[in-house]
Structures are given as structure tokens and as C-alpha cells.
């Protein structure tokens, strides 16, 4: 492990076994240390970078460090964690972003998802659940809560009542995805939903990730549409 430009760059090559690379962006030293120790204690995970703010996070990305999972705290000291999430998306990286949150309130989580995050992690989770959540995310599943599911359902319903152009821009949920969201909103967990749908547990979580990606796409599309409406960009700029 060595320090470069203020952030810690951990030896990727030191671990030759198959593991998932993880980076942490968290300004709270105590919590950052706890997560780091949980990750380091598990063989499936490899902590490749750790940053205390937005600037350090961007720096290690520019250094070519592209983790498979990036854990981001929304309340960074220099910029919002949402900006970092958008930065990752704009760079076209394959990194999956998980938002670190204490209360997992739906508004902040869905904002992060719309920015491009594909999951969230409760800060008070047990070490086992932390690891399980990160591994699930890499393997294609995303965590979700009834409150988040309700929020997404309400949000899609509101958008469907909007302008015709916006409606066309929305990638609508499939009936199965909507059914999954509604079951989650009622408090069903993934294994129960899998039983109801006759599908695998991971399939349900994969559907959740698809839903998150659609939200992000829709959000970007909406932003482009609004910018075009206001004349800030043109079709040529978008490359449409």
C-alpha cells in the first residue's frame, strides 16, 4: 500500500485471488476505518482506494484506479456525493456505486439512484450484511426497501401524467418490474417475491437493478430534454 496525492492506493496486485475491488469515499474517519476493516477482513473484497472528499476520489479515478464498487457518502465536505456519482457515469466507467446512508430515506437514495447509483448501504449494518450487499451488487442485484419502492412507484405515476414528449422519453417499467416493486412496497423480501413469481432470488434483485438503471436513464433523458427546451444544447450536441 502506498500514498499518492493524499489518497491511499492499495496494492491490487498483492491479491491474486478473484476478488472484487472496492473504493471508499467517506469523510468520517471512524466509519471509513470500520468499513475498510470489514472489507479487508473478507477475501471476496479488495479495498483499492480510500478518499475523504470529492477531489481525492476524482484524483484516483484519473490515476486509472477503477474499482468495481465505489461506496460514496452523500455528505462530502467539498462537493455533494451526487456529483461524484454523476462524474463516474460521465466517465463511462463500469463502476457500481453504492450510497452510504444512515437512515436510507427514500428521497436521498432515489436521488442517488437517478444520478447513477445502483445500490445503497446502511452504515449500521453488520459486517456480514455489508459484505453480502457489496457482493450482491457486483453479481447483479441491488438492495431496496419498501419506502424506496413506494417512492419509485409514486414517482413513475407522477411522470406518466406529464407532457407527451417526456412520456416518450421515459423507459417504462415492465409489468413484472412493476409487480416486484409493488410487492416490495408491501414489505415482501426478495426470497418471498421469488417464491411468488416462481423465480430465483437473484433474479428479483437483478430486476431491481434494472429498475434503478431505468431511473438513471430516464433522469438523464429528462435532463437532456429540459436542456434542449431551454436552448442550452441542441440535437447536434447530444449527437442524436
Amino acid at each position, binding site marked *: 500500500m502506498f500514498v499518492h496525492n493524499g489518497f491511499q492506493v492499495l496494492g491490487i496486485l498483492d491479491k491474486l485471488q478473484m476478488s472484487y475491488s472496492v473504493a471508499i469515499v467517506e469523510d468520517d474517519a471512524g466509519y471509513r476505518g470500520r468499513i475498510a476493516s470489514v472489507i479487508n477482513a473478507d477475501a471476496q473484497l479488495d479495498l483499492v482506494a480510500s478518499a475523504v472528499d470529492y477531489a481525492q476520489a476524482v484524483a484516483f479515478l484519473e490515476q486509472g484506479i477503477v474499482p468495481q464498487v465505489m461506496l460514496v457518502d452523500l455528505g462530502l465536505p467539498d462537493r455533494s456525493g451526487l456529483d461524484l456519482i454523476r462524474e463516474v457515469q460521465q466517465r463511462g466507467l463500469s463502476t457500481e456505486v453504492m450510497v452510504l446512508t444512515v*437512515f436510507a430515506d427514500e428521497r436521498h437514495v432515489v436521488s442517488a439512484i437517478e444520478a447513477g447509483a445502483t445500490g445503497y448501504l446502511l452504515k*449500521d449494518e*453488520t459486517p456480514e450484511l455489508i459484505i453480502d450487499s457489496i457482493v450482491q451488487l457486483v453479481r447483479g442485484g441491488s438492495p431496496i*426497501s*419498501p*419506502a424506496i419502492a413506494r417512492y419509485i412507484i409514486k414517482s413513475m405515476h407522477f411522470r406518466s401524467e406529464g407532457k407527451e414528449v417526456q412520456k416518450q422519453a421515459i423507459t417504462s417499467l415492465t409489468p413484472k418490474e412493476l409487480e416486484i416493486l409493488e410487492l416490495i*412496497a*408491501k*414489505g415482501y*423480501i426478495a426470497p418471498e417475491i421469488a417464491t411468488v413469481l416462481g423465480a430465483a432470488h437473484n433474479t428479483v434483485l437483478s430486476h431491481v437493478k434494472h429498475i434503478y438503471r431505468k431511473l438513471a436513464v430516464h433522469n438523464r433523458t429528462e435532463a437532456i430534454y429540459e436542456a434542449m427546451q431551454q436552448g442550452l444544447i441542441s440535437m447536434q450536441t447530444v449527437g442524436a
Partner: protein
Amino acid sequence: MKQLYDIILGLILLLASLPVWAGSSVLVLDRAFIQTSGASTLPPASSGESWQLQSLPDNWNLTRPRTSGFLWYQMRFKLDEVPTALWSLYFPSVSSRVAVYLNGKLLGEGTSYGELSKPAWQQPYFVSIPQGLLLQGENILQVHLMPAQPFPGYLGKMYVGPGDALQPLFAKRFALTVNLPQAIVVLMLALGVAVAMLWWFRKNETQYLWFAVTVLAWSVYDGAQFFGDILPISSRARDILAANGLIWFIVSLTLFSHRFLGLQVGKAERWLLVCGVCGGIISLLLPDNGFSVMRLYVLDPFLIALGGYILLRLLYGYIKTRSLATGLLAGCIILGLSFGMHDWLMILGVIDLEGYLLLHLSAPVLFTVVSFILNKRMTSALDDAEYLSLHLEDRVRSVANELELRLEQSRVKDRHVVLNQERERMMRDMHDGVGGMLVSAIQAVETGCVSREALARELRGVVDEFRLMIDSLDPDECGLEDLLANFRVRLIRQLQAQDIQLHWQIGDIGAVPQCAGSKAVDVLRVLQEATTNALKYARAKNIFVGGQYTDGALVFFVRDDGVGFQLTDGVGKGIKNMRYRAARIGAVLAVESGVTGTCVTLSLNFPQTVAVLG
């Protein structure tokens, strides 16, 4: 009164004729001989014992009351020589028709109303004497007077002299007695039309209507008298016009007075209108000269009485309100009454007929004052409207600012109330939930009787409690179904950790609006407490959580298959909390426990509303 008229007449004669008097030879004939015999169309013999001396003016009401018919007057005057200039004869005041003969020759008749007699009331008479008719020495002037009933006969002093000297006197008197009233009629007509047009644009102002009718009616009445010889209509038609003009003057003046004073005398006014119509019909049926009788003995007294009534109303109104307008109008009525009374007595021959009729002079004063008052009212109203319009925007802004301020104050107050209520609720929740858990954790750490895992678990429970509090503060009124969904997820994790099977039997309870917000949180707290107790003490393998909403009743239960407890052992803090929360939301809590397990039931009554979700 007579002396006053004499003074005025004398002044006029003096001012107008001074150059003439100086060296003029105007003869004043103030004595005559009278007789009643003889033909009405031919002068009687100028001598004889039938002639009786009579001084002039001769008022039949005084000298021979209730006498009708005709009378011959004979006056003799001497001339030293036959005048070379044109001489004339001038009668300042004569009632009805006269025929004048000089030295046996007819000079003329003193009325232009043709055969039917019509009181050419108070009009002066002037006739030129043809050359050669006057004789040197004695000349005999004979006047035939036949007054129209019911008016008494009257012959005033006569003047004979140069036309140049008498013409100005006649012209002045004619102007005062004929031209001036005619001018007043024309002005009144114009005023009436103008006020009528004003009313047309403000129909709710009925006082303008009745004032216009009053003025127009008076114009018709006076016009029939003073334009009678000009209008190409018969004397009967003139009588009908005059009668109706006077009748409707009376009616409309009364109605105008009522409107002016703001009085509501509906029934009496309706009767007055009926009388007006009836009077108009009667005027059509009157015989010749019937209008004169009707006027003298019916309309004039009624007008005077009505004037008295109106005056009393105005004086009462003035005493009550001290309004200048009412006072002015009362003054005008007093003036009109005085002049009217004077004219009536004059026409009746009670007072000297040498004077002038005055009532038509009071009409312009009355109408001018009333016009001024009405215009003042209108301009005041317009001024007020302009002022209001000018300041309306300021007033609206001022009121809006005041309302905004009050609204803000109300909002601040409401905010304080709501915040206090939320603070109270959060304090209760924290006391019951988080506060208790943290205090227990502190106690456990201080006593050293808790493992790290147990402490971590307890602290995670505290975070979950905070999450529950945040959920319940959802501004979109987090409903019971939403809270139950979150609770289910957390409960499953807790039970899975302890290898306990959850049997979730809560069906579609639908949205119960009355069970949202803090009430929903209290329901959830009861279920949470019940499941926590089952987890901690029951040693159960299965926990059943159920609920349904039917027939307006919301019923939940938490049942376990654990060891149960003795209810007689005393009620623990958990059950006390549940009972407290149940009572707060008006629910009924039942706890049953035995060797096969414990069942906690919570029942609330709500009317069923919206259809189920999903």
C-alpha cells in the same frame, strides 16, 4: 301689500316716464260713473240718472260682492285742444274682457281670447286712439266690463295721453305680467327636459323623475295661460291642459318631496296618483269655464293645503337632520306658499287686484334651488366615486397587506402549534422507544452485563427506531400500510436471526384515512411492542401477525406459540405502554396468555372508505 305695489309701480312710472312727465299731458281717470242697464254690445246714453258715481279702482268683490253680469263705466275728460300727436288709452290692470268706446266709437276689446271669456288675468290693456276721434272740450270714454265667472270684476285706473308717454309704461307692465312668465315657462320646460334626461341615465334616482314631472307639469299649466293666445288650440283645450298641468304639478310635487326626504308613504302615494288620474278625467268632462271654478275652489285650496303638508314634512326633516338642503327647500316652499296664497286671494278679489301675480315668480326660485341641491348631490356622489377610484388601489393594497400580515401571523402561530405538537409526539416516541433503549444500553455498559454483540444489537435497534420516527414524519402522511411494510421487513430480519418463523396474515386493509400519521405510528408501536415481547420472552418458534378491516372495524393481532405468562403476575412496562397507546387512539387492547402462547389484540372502529391497494 297694496302700498308696496304702489311704490313699485310709482318707481317704474317715475323711472320710465320722467322725461315724459316733464311737460306731458297724461290724464289719470280715477273716477267713473257706472250703470248696469243697457245692451251689452252698445254703449248706453252718456247722460241720465241711471249713472252712478264710482271711484277707481273698482273691485266688485268689495263694491258689489257676488254680482255677475256686466257693467258700463263712463268717464269724461276735457281737452283744451285736439292733440296733434297720437294719443292712447292705457289700462294697467283689468280682469277679463273689456270693450272700450270713445265718444261713441268702439276703440277695441281688451282680450284676444275670442268669444269665450278667459280671464286675461292681470294683463295690461293698451289701445291707440285714432286721429280725429278726440274732441276739443269734453270727451266721453265708456268701458263695458263683463267678468268671466267665477272671477270678480275689476277695473283699475285708466290713463289717457300721448302714446309716446304711455307706451313705455304699458311695455314695462306687459313685460312683467306676460313676457316674464312666458320666459319662465320656456326655462322651466328646458329644465324639466334636462332633469328628465338625467333621470333616464339614473333610473334608480326617482327624485329626479318626480322633479322633472313637477317642472314639466308647471310649465304646461303656466304655458296654457301665458301662451294661450299663441297656441293654435281652442280655449277648451287650453283649459284641459292647464287643469292637468296643475293636477300633476300637485301630485308630482308631493312625490318629489317624499323622495327628497327619503320617505316611504306607498299607500298614500298610490291614492294620490289615482286622484291625479281621476282629476285629469274630470277635466275632460268640465263645461266651458269649468276649469276656472275647479281651480279657484278645488285645486288652489288643495295646492295650498298640500304646500302646508310638504312644508311641515320639510321642517320636521330639517329639525331632525339640520340639513342645509332641506332648509333651503323649506324656504322655497314658504315662499311659494306665500305667493300662492297671495295670488289666490288676489284672484278671489279679497286683496287689491292692482298688484301682480307672484306664484310664477316663485317657481324659478324653487326649481333653481332644487336643481342646485340635486346637482350638488350628484357631484358629491361623483366626487366620492372619483376619490374612491383614485384611492381604490391604495385601499386594496392596504387591505391586502393587512390580510397578508394576519395570514402570516396565523401561519406562524399554526406553525408553532404544529411544531409543538410534533415535538410532543417525538418526545413521547423517543421516551418510549429510543430514549428507553439508550438508557438501557447505558445501564448495561455501566454495569458491564452486556456483550458487545448485544450492545451492538441494541444500538442498531435505536437506529431502527430513528428510521421509524423519520418514516412517521413523512409530510405525505405516511399511512398505516406503509409503516406495516417497513415493519415487516425489519421483523423478518429479526426473526430470521433468531430462527423464528413469521406468519404474516395482514390482508389488504385498504387506505383508512383516519389511521395515518401519529395514529398509525401508535398502532405500529403496539404491534412492535407485542412482537418484541414475543421475541424476548416467549421462546416461540412461530409468530403470527394478522390484521383485517371489515365493517368499519380495524383489528390487529400478534400471536405466538411460546410459553405464555401469568397475567396475574402483574402488568409489565411493555403492556402498560401498549394500553396507554391504545387508549390514546381510542382503541381496545386485549391480552390473552396461556401455556400455548400469548395473543395481543388491538381493535379500532373506523368507517370503511377507499378501495384496497394493489
